[in-house]
């Protein structure tokens, strides 16, 4: 192995360690957004970490480390979703889910929500029904990223992101209002 390769490998390891420490919890949450089954989620998370470590061999600072990490993580998770073909057919966009919740009879909605014991499970249930791009936007929103950062990660326009976030907020509001009324 040449000198340059050695330096590159050290940098790669160093970057990975830094990212694993800083972005460990967000990556775990991201995996939860893409996979409901705990065992499969563990595998997905390991795969994300593995691909991140590999990707750092090519890290050229053309974007920020955070954007890089989220892009790689979302892309690996998207591939994971696409592999489950049967699941993929049932995925919907934020717009579709908004209409669906709007048209769903209140009793049905309450029943669906009541089946999810924890509030976190309710959010996860909602996210896991979304198409990958919409899922990325809602996860970025929940992680506290602004519209510009999300636009940089996804490649969508900031205006488009803002519109989607507005819809997501509406959906979450309705979803949780029903859950809260039911719990109350």
């Amino acid at each position: 192995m040449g000198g340059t390769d050695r330096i590159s490998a050290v940098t790669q390891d160093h970057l990975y360690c830094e990212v694993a420490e800083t972005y460990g919890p967000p990556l775990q949450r991201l995996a939860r957004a893409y996979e409901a089954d705990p065992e499969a989620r563990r595998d997905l998370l390991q795969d994300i970490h593995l691909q991140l470590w590999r990707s750092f061999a090519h890290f050229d600072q053309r974007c920020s480390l955070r954007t890089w990490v989220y892009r790689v993580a979302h892309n690996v998770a998207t591939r994971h979703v696409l592999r489950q073909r049967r699941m993929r057919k049932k995925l919907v966009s934020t717009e579709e889910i908004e209409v669906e919740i709007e048209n769903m009879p209140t009793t049905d909605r309450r029943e669906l929500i009541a089946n999810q014991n924890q509030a976190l499970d309710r959010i996860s249930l909602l996210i896991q029904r979304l198409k990958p791009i919409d899922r990325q936007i809602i996860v970025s929103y929940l992680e506290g990223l602004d519209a510009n950062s999300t636009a940089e990660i996804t490649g969508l326009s900031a205006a488009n992101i803002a519109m989607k976030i507005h819809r997501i907020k509406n959906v979450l509001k309705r979803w949780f209002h029903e859950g809260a009324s039911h719990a109350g």
Partner: protein
Amino acid sequence: MPDEFHDAKKLWQDQPMEAIPMSLDEIRRKAHKLLRRAQWAALLWIVIGLALSVAFAHTFLQDHGLLPRIGWGFLTLWSLYGACHAYKWIWPGNLAEDGTLRTSVDSYRSELERQRDYALHIWRRSGLTFCFLGLAFVVLPLIVKALATPKLLVNAVPFFVLLFIWFIAFFFQRKRGRQRLQREIDELKALASEGQS
């Protein structure tokens, strides 16, 4: 109304975390394991392809009819093609440099395009032309022979009818799947161009 419903962000960010070991050693071990697994899977297909080609070539040498021999020849070619195909397409290579680094829309779209192209070219990539030609040449003489006893052919009718229905349903479903993929690809293209402008 419980407070947690007011702040989905807080709820999401405060969720309990599992302790999952992700040390460098763990990552390297996993990379090594994945590579080995992928190599074994490719090797398995290569061995199956080669074993089939030997079996078909053996039958080719044993058979004396011209048409069946052509059929076994095609099947031998098909299984050899399968073995080469496994080496070319399944054998694990290096991660494409930009494979994981594109924007999410680009990456998602290219995955969908890959799936669409795979479905479009599956006939050519799997060498199914060789396979069906071979089967046709092997089965044709048997059908010709069966013409002498039409009762045999009548018995086989339900099988061929079911096969025909399966083919129609298969192609119809594939066409629908391709159209759905194409719709989603077009939507993503529109979104991406909006993002660039």
